[in-house]
């Protein structure tokens, strides 16, 4: 097994009493595309900035290959420019007083490339990103999508071993976002660098990542391959954050060996009586029904979204958002009550704190481990 290209060991960043990053341990192999995913304020950007060297950790270490680039214990803090890493800022941070060409070339100048090498490389990256016609323009004179490409070109020009992206697509329109996503992956492969990408968009994460670290409150909630997070969520938070639509999680209590949600019986329990649990059901495990009986949850209809030839029907059940995938476009009206039949075994069972108790059924045929 190759040594990790990037490794975080007990990484922490505190501002006074609050911890923006509260201890992260993970590592990815060379060539990996690591996505730091999570809601805003979860510490993902702070982590990225520590990787870039723009912030110093208050505890822990960062390793790039076999080189420690930041360590509070050893007093190591390699300067951002000496880490062989490039960063694309959310704002792009193109220098407004430099032309596109100067923006791309200046870092090479700092790195003491010869004029001939600079020109060759400039042409290479501009061709790679199809921005050659913009060479003499100022950043204020080109569109947002073009600025984005220039920012990427500027980052990869010095051939960094680590590419860092701070929500680079958040300022682009949906179509451009999808195109640029593919573009970024192409660049990532073309450079054979290791990438770290920050986003709050789980679709972006799913499509690009080889590894996802889903963060929450400064900690890594779950780290793994994209399908791990979808298929084997380890916490209720992961279950409700990942997937389109995300999985449903219903609170229930064990009474007489059965899961009860209020008066509704949700099937036989695997945990002791009196314990509070959260039951996870995938949207595709649920069905609408007209009949009465146990395991029927009432859904107050809110909306439906077409998705790959089927429909995601969403609504609320006692304040919990709930989604069901069906083949037919429902004719329900806003607020109408629909009955949903849940399977007799939940796809996953979490405790009251959201930690996994029971992985439940072995992965079904529909979800093979890749």
């Amino acid at each position, binding site marked *: 097994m190759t040594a990790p290209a990037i490794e975080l*060991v007990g990484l922490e960043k505190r501002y006074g009493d609050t911890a923006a990053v509260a201890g992260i341990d993970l590592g990815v192999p060379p060539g990996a595309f690591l996505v730091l995913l999570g809601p805003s304020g979860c510490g993902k950007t702070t982590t990225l900035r520590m990787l870039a060297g723009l912030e110093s950790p208050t505890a822990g270490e960062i390793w790039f290959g076999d080189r420690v680039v930041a360590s509070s214990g050893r007093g190591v803090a390699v300067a951002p420019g000496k880490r062989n890493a490039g960063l694309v800022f959310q704002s792009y941070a193109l*220098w407004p007083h430099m032309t596109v060409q100067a923006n791309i070339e200046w870092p090479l100048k700092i790195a003491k490339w010869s004029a001939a090498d600079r020109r060759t490389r400039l042409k290479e990256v501009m061709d790679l990103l199809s921005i050659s016609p913009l060479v003499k323009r100022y*950043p204020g004179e080109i569109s947002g999508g073009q600025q984005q490409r220039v920012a990427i070109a500027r980052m990869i020009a010095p051939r960094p071993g680590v590419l860092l992206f701070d929500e680079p697509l958040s300022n682009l329109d949906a179509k451009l976002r999808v195109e640029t996503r593919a573009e970024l992956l192409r660049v990532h492969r073309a450079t054979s660098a290791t990438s770290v990408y920050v986003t709050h968009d789980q679709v972006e994460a799913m499509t690009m990542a080889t590894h996802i670290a889903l963060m929450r409150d400064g900690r890594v909630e779950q780290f793994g391959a994209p399908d791990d997070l979808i298929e084997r969520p380890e916490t209720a938070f992961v279950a409700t954050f990942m997937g389109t639509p995300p999985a449903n999680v219903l609170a229930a209590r064990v009474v007489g060996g059965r899961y009860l949600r209020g008066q509704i019986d949700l099937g036989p329990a695997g945990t002791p009586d009196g314990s509070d649990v959260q039951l996870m059901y995938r949207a595709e495990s649920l069905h609408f029904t007209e009949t009465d009986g146990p395991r029927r949850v009432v859904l107050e209809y809110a909306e439906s979204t077409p998705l790959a030839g089927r429909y995601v029907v969403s609504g609320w059940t006692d304040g919990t958002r709930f989604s069901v995938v069906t083949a037919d476009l429902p004719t329900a009206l806003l607020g109408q009550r629909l009955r949903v039949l849940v399977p007799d075994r939940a796809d996953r069972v979490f405790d009251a704190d959201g930690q996994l108790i029971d992985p439940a059924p072995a992965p079904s045929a529909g979800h093979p481990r890749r």
Partner: protein
Amino acid sequence: MALLAPPAPPETGPGRGRPPASRWARTGSALRQPIVLLGAATAVVLGVLVLPPLAGLVATTLRPEGITAWRDVLASRLSENLFYEPLINSLVIGGATSLGATALGGFMAWLVVMTDAPGKRWLGLLAMIPFALPSFALALAWETVFRNDRIGGRVGVLADLGLMPPDWLSWGALPISATLIAHYYSLSFVLVTAALASVNADLMEAGEMAGATRARVARSIALPVVLPAIIASGLLAFAEGVSNFASPALLGLPVRFQTVSTRLFGAISTGETARGYVLALLLIAVAAVVLFSSTRLLGARRSYATITGKGGRRRQIELGAWRLPLTGLGVLVVLVTTIVPASVLLASSFSRRTNSFTGGFTTHFWVGASDPAFAQGQRGVLRNPLVVDAAITTITLGLAVAVTATVLGLAVGYVITRLRGPRPVVGAISILSYLPFLIPGIALGAAFIAQFGRPIGPIPALYGTFAILVIAGAAYTLPFAAQSGRSAVAQISADLEESAAMAGAGLFRRMTRIVVPLSARGLLAGAVLVFVKMVRDLSLVVLLVTPATPLLSVVTYRYASEGFAQFANAITVIIAVISVAATVAAQRLQGTAQPWVDR
């Protein structure tokens, strides 16, 4: 499989693994480490520039005669006359100057930057000129026109024509405030213009989309963004108004209208040094109260980063029916504050009889050879080698101080903006850079003689050298340079520097390639302010100048006090020409320095 399997807990190789707990918490970004050094260095330089003179002031007032002076000033029969009444006069003048200058400067800035007023380039150029005129020039011009016969002697143009102005128009608070407003509004104009130019049209359009009226958008969106500049300029104008010496000396002193600074000047010039220093310290204390409340206001609003890596647009407000009336108002402002006083000065330098436009004109005071019939045989100013020499020294001094103060001001602005801690360093730099403008120029000059007039360690006595003028000038103009450095740097988004740091650029390189080019407009404006302030300054240099280092303003002052009004006015015109030329050149330079800014 290595790619997809979640890596097991990291292998604990040699040296790897959970590191020992940090002995000291490393806070802060990587940009900071060199900044801390820069901050410390800046603090030291400022300390050396500012603290010894202040310490000199304090030390003097703590000696026995100083204690007596404190009693005289604060708690004796003399106090009312010596301090309390002048204090009220100073505060009234400072307040009026601050309000008037900010309102006038803000209006002109808005008109020039935000609207489609015709001829606004010219209005903008003319609005910057009063600051280039020495403040005694406007006072002299006022006197030339409005002086009445209350104290006898020569009268002004109006009285000469038979229209005797009332006392309140000739002397005291009104004319002093009016001349100071006409002088300092252009300072507000410069500062607010720079801030307004950075307001992104999106912000305002978003307000209009929300259904706000134009007035509401201006009040709720543009105003908060430029408020730091407005507060800063009001603060500067207040400090200048309170401590100005030339205007109250010319328009108040003759009728015994005293301010703290004229009292201070009187005390020092009559040898009551300790009493003068006590007054200086009190003046500092008064201004400090204003300063601290204002920094608190400004501090909370520090981080409006408005230059980002994304392009912004600017949009003009169409004035519609208000176009002509508002433009007319703008024209009136520049007429009254610039063109009329300049014409009066110029005309009176050609007038045969002092302050009279009816007694015929002559070019003698400019180019005349020595003629016993005129001015006791003195040559015209352009033929006078002393004046030519003084002009060269003045320009050299202005340039040297502008460069020194701007470099310092950039360092101060950078450290204050980017170094979010350690608080004591930032606070110290902030306070040190503001302190000098609480010290009246004349007191600062005296304090510099006291400190640098004798050798200190390896430094020889500097009195009478060019160096002491540069050092004193840098200390004196530091607040201006620091203010412009601060607002210039605050408008550059930290991203832009961080991306340079990612490219491996060190602090020096980021300064020269990112910070300076992007803040060039503000820095250049600040440098010109400093240059102009030095070229036309009298109060600071009047005590420091020796025959080896003649300066135009001192020569003017000598002529004026000896009664040669035409010579004085002629040299004042020369000073104005130098300053105005600098201002215009700076405008041109700004255009070529920032080709990426669309205009």
